């Protein structure tokens, strides 16, 4: 395949950026999107150009490091991560626009790499449980009803990639935050911090400068793990419950 790529290039956080156009040839349909970019970077390095910086780690769809807006879609046209997107989703001769996640809480570091540490700080605010260390407890000691276990697992699938923020017209982190809160709040292990978790994590989310939710549903459409939109409503319910119970 021969492709025209229009890629966002930006030297550093303070420099202005712009789209640059590149041609790549000899792309196989079986390559992943990141392997296609590797091919471009090899060529750029050979001619002495600065390679395009982009985030990646596991390349198997589980770490949440890869992050590109491809033709206006976070992680491109399929419901998967960019590393698991294959070039067979494109046609020979296509022009592909590649941009970084856009949100003021995710400032661009270089080219397509953005700083997502705001997500880490939301997790630090309450995305954990208090558990005694030592040997693992007997698995059957704490019964979890099946529907609760399913609900927790559905939300535990979130890999924290930030596609929800990138897709949201308000740069909102509600889907991410709701996935993390719902995952722990429904389980008995998460019960001791049930109220403080939701209040603190939502508070941190607000202070990081993410936008609010206007229920456009873009986040859930973009999510490579299929975290559903009603997760946000479930978090709102937890938040309202905690506001009634906890007096600060």
């Amino acid at each position, binding site marked *: 395949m021969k492709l025209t790529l229009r890629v966002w290039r930006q030297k550093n956080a303070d420099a202005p950026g712009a789209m640059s156009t590149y041609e790549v040839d000899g792309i196989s349909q079986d390559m992943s999107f990141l392997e296609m970019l590797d091919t471009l970077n090899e060529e750029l390095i050979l001619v002495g150009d600065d390679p395009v910086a982009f985030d990646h780690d596991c390349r198997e769809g589980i770490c949440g490091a890869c992050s590109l807006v491809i033709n206006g*879609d976070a992680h491109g046209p399929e419901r998967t991560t960019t590393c698991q997107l294959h070039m067979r989703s494109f046609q020979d001769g296509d022009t592909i626009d590649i941009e970084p996640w856009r949100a003021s809480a995710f400032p661009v570091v270089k080219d397509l790499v953005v700083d997502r540490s705001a997500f880490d700080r939301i997790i630090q605010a309450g995305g954990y449980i208090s558990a005694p260390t030592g040997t693992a407890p007997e698995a059957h000691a704490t019964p979890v009803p099946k529907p609760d276990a399913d609900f927790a697992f559905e939300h535990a699938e979130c890999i924290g990639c930030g596609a929800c923020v990138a897709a949201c017209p308000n740069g909102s982190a509600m889907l991410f935050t709701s996935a993390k809160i719902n995952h722990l709040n429904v389980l008995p292990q998460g019960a001791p911090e049930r109220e403080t978790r939701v209040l603190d994590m939502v508070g941190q989310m607000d202070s990081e*400068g993410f*936008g609010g939710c206007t229920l*456009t549903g873009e986040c859930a459409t973009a999510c490579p793990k299929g975290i559903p*939109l*009603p997760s946000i409503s479930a978090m709102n319910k937890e*938040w309202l419950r905690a506001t009634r119970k906890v007096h600060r």
Partner: protein
Amino acid sequence: MTRTLWDSSVGKKTIMAVSGLIMLLYLVVHMIGNLKIFFGSGEFNHYAHWLRTMGEPFLHYEWALWIVRVVLVAAVVLHATSAYQLSRRDIKARPSKYVHKKPRASYATRTMRWGGIILALFIVWHILDLTTGTVHSGGFQSGHPYQNVIDTFSTWYGNTIYIVAMLALGLHVQHGFWSAAQTLGAGNATRDRALKTIANVLALVLTVGFISIPVAVMTGVVS
């Protein structure tokens, strides 16, 4: 708790949802009342008078009406202030647009802000027209709402303003009712279809119900 609500984006959205639902409830009642115009001036004017004597003898003349007005003004102010502040936050959170743009979200969802502004302007005009009579087209007579309504809908601009505003209202309610349910924590996968259906029905009934009156005056069904 009030501070927590006002300081959090989730809390402010809750205030929007509750104030929106209060206005929505009022609109349903208001629309049903308005439809009495189809039963003639006697019944319509009698109903308008009852709005003032409602609650007597426990309440004094017009007290109930004033309570409703105060609640509605509070709802409009809270709703519009939260809308403004949340919109400011949202726009700030996404300062740079994507080069590759895609049309997304439904029309109703994308027009919440402009639709809200149209509704705010309409509310002001509507009160100056049919409550105070300040911008009324005919000779405004308080106590004779039937004639006042006919006069308003006998002008092209009266009809245009009203119909545009009611279309905006339908769109606003379609996304707003469902959104409010999500904000208040009532949304889940199994209930989603039911909530969307209620939102669509409410939006349609309100729009058709309200618009039927200018249409009836224009076509001479009500005169």
